[in-house]
């Protein structure tokens, strides 16, 4: 079929020092990722999904995947024990 067609999903954004995964990207990569996956408790997960930065027990600077049980919450940059929030406004919970 030779007609213009949109394809692919918004998986992540390539940053200068790694890749920042979207929620969808995290759901795809998360189950296979062996490093830099941080499990949040329920309280921190809700904070994250409200658009707040969350404190984590993680040393160093890295792009990480956040998760809670079977739910993947997207990617963020861990730095100084905090992950900066990248949840887009239209995906946050109130």
């Amino acid at each position, binding site marked *: *079929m030779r007609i213009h*067609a*949109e394809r692919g999903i918004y998986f992540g954004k390539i940053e200068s020092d790694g890749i920042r995964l979207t*929620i969808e990207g995290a*759901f795809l990569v998360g189950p296979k990722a062996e490093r830099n996956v941080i499990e949040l408790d329920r309280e921190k997960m809700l904070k994250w*999904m409200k658009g707040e930065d969350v404190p984590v027990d993680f040393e160093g600077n890295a792009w990480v995947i956040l998760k809670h049980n079977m*739910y993947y*919450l997207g990617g963020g940059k861990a730095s100084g024990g905090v992950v900066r929030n990248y949840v887009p406004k239209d*995906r946050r*919970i109130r």
Partner: protein
Amino acid sequence: MREMFGELYERYSVLDDSDEFWEYLKKPLRQSIRINTLKAPFESIKERLEEEYILEPIPWVREGFFINKSEFSDVLEHALGLIFPQEAASMIPPVVLNPKPGELVLDMAAAPGAKTTQIAQYMRNEGCIVANDMKKFRVNILIANLNRFGVLNARVTQKDGAYFGRFRETFDRILLDAPCTSVGMIRKNFKFAKGWSMDRVYMYSKIQKKLIIAAYKALKPGGILVYSTCTVDPFENEEVVDYLLRKTDAKLEKIKLPLKSSPPVLEFDSHEYSKEVKKCLRLHPQDNDTEAFFVAKIRKP
């Protein structure tokens, strides 16, 4: 009722003379959701939701539930794309279509994408869905929803559905959830009662006939075409299916689902239809306390 619904009452009280039809048509819909199995396991999403909400299974869709929640901005599963708020009757066409992993499927009027994501779910993201819609702003909503629900096997096109008629005998299955006067949606928004007119019924009926012929051309021999609308007018339902049966070698198949339905219409407003249309599924709002809906399952020999 006559004052509230005007001309619409005159026409459809002939179709269904029960008081329940009109009582349910003005009654708000029960909220329902579909669990998206493309991103996380069904049971884990269901269990998590049950910690906070009461889920009542929808008998005709395994992934569908009525839920005691009407606003989703604070629901985690909604933000993560794990549930799709979708009307219970509108979950029927993809169930009837029954697509399989690996098939080539056309969703001719796909936006906003509730049924497309349901199709992707049944295909387990394998094969290909061509998800089409005619209007740019609707296509954008469709793309956003396919993204959010983790659909990996769809390509989105923006064309008049009739365009697909040129791809002869190409698709294994086709869903034509046709644009219509949306009388079934009055329960969601009264604007559909105010905007209703006989001119619109004629206009949509003409468009639907054009689309169903194009869809049938694009269907492979042995393939399944599902035609559906969210309206009650026989001119947009039985008449469109009858038109296809007269013009082509299409065959209807009986739809068997655990729900109540109203008898399909064989004669209305001096128009007569083939007895074959009895195999279609006609839902009035009081049958299952849902939107009104019409579904036909067509096979190409």
